[in-house]
């Protein structure tokens, strides 16, 4: 049959030489490569037990901050939700009652504050928009989970723990 194009290349098949027929030199050559890797630096880490150092501007899970007296800084102004390009943040505000002055910094606070971690793209715009320095993306990697509903993080997961438990109480 005539070739359709001139691109066809005819390979010449030579009979195997003695060393090639023995296979052993080729096996040894391959093993040498494999064994040499045993002594090289391992590029991976054993993740959950061992964690890599994050860069300074790493953006991980959000945390809602407290001030020096352990009061929540967030005042539910809605600027984070407004700036969020993925529309991941929702909140419901409430008025601070008498006697709650040690819990919330301002007259108004976020009674419900939810971030949908499936929607969040970790761009950090909420952090930039916050006028009260209340939200920072300084946490670890958001863990995997089985159900979609478990990715909606409420205040129980987001608000940071008071640093001195006795002082806050």
């Amino acid at each position, binding site marked *: 049959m005539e070739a359709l194009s001139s691109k066809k290349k005819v390979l010449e098949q030579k009979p195997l030489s003695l060393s090639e027929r023995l296979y052993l030199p080729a096996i040894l050559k391959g093993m040498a490569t494999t064994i040499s890797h045993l002594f090289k630096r391992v590029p991976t880490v054993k993740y959950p037990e061992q964690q890599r150092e994050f860069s300074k501007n790493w953006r991980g899970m959000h945390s809602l901050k407290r001030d020096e007296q352990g009061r929540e800084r967030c005042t*539910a*102004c809605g600027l984070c939700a*407004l700036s969020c390009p993925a529309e991941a943040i929702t909140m419901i*505000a409430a008025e601070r009652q008498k006697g709650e002055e040690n819990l919330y910094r*301002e*007259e108004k606070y976020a009674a419900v504050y939810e971030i949908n971690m499936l929607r969040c793209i970790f761009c950090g715009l909420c952090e930039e928009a916050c006028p009260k320095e209340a939200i920072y993306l300084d946490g670890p990697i958001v863990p995997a989970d089985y159900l979609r509903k478990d990715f909606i993080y409420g205040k129980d997961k987001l608000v940071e723990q008071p640093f001195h438990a006795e002082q806050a109480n």
Partner: protein
Amino acid sequence: MAETVKVTIDGITVEVAPGTTILNAARQIGGEIVPPAMCYYSKLQGSGGKCRTCLVKVSKGSEKDPRPMPKLVASCRTGVMDGMEVQNITSPEVIEARKGVVEMLLINHPLDCPICDQAGECHLQDLAYEHGEEATRYEFERRTFEKHTLGDKIQLHMTRCILCYRCVFVADQITNKRIHGVLGRGDAAEISTYIEKAIDNDFSGNMIDVCPVGALTDKTFRFKNRVWFTKPVDAHRDCPTCSGKVTLWYKGEDVIRVTARKDEYGEAEEFICNTCRFDTKKTSDWVIEGPRHISRHSVISSNHYETMHPLPVIQQKPQLQEFNKEQFERATKL
């Protein structure tokens, strides 16, 4: 006397009726050259002349007397003359003076915009954003007041007040009995009811609409939501006491606030009664006309569409739940 007088504002000539103020002449031209106004309200007689944000430079008094006016004048209180030439945004002097005015207005303002319900539709916020400096030079304590209650419908935050007197004029002119006014002088001046009496007039709610800052806000809307997450919709109803033309502010399916319709200068087109404002907050009470037009520059225009769509609401579908019952159970077990 001529039927109309010619006045030139920033190089644009307009013919207006004699006796018009410079501010109203500028509003007839419209656009960027309109001086901002915090205390002047076209529907309230006697308002204006207090906040000084509408200062303009008159570079030529009139055709007969072409000398410029020696100082900047408040455009809401100065009448036009034939052949008058006014500079607003073209004069660096005016822009500098306006910066000073904004700084003075903000001296005692608490700047608690993250908490304030007015944020997003606050005139002082817009004014400071457009004309003000970024930082204040004021180092002293801001004034504070004892708490007053103005009934269960209106919330008074005296610290935010800029003493524009608009609410006093509303109480004076629209309601038949004024029971609140301004007490004290100078730094101690504050609006208050005389004997801490609740304001229970049928039109008292309009004070909320005329207030340029968050000093008077709707108590039924207090901390419910931020204005930019709500969807304004024009609606009307048959009201025996007022025109019944309002703007409804929706969040999802619920009307969470009712206000008067406001024009481009933030002034209510028609005042509405308290029944419309506070008591009728169901969609079934209203005839919906369509989404309200919101300026592109306003924060409220984010996610605001001007085509009439039914409100997107996720409904429970029992049929679908029945079909997916098995899967739901498996999911809960996990």
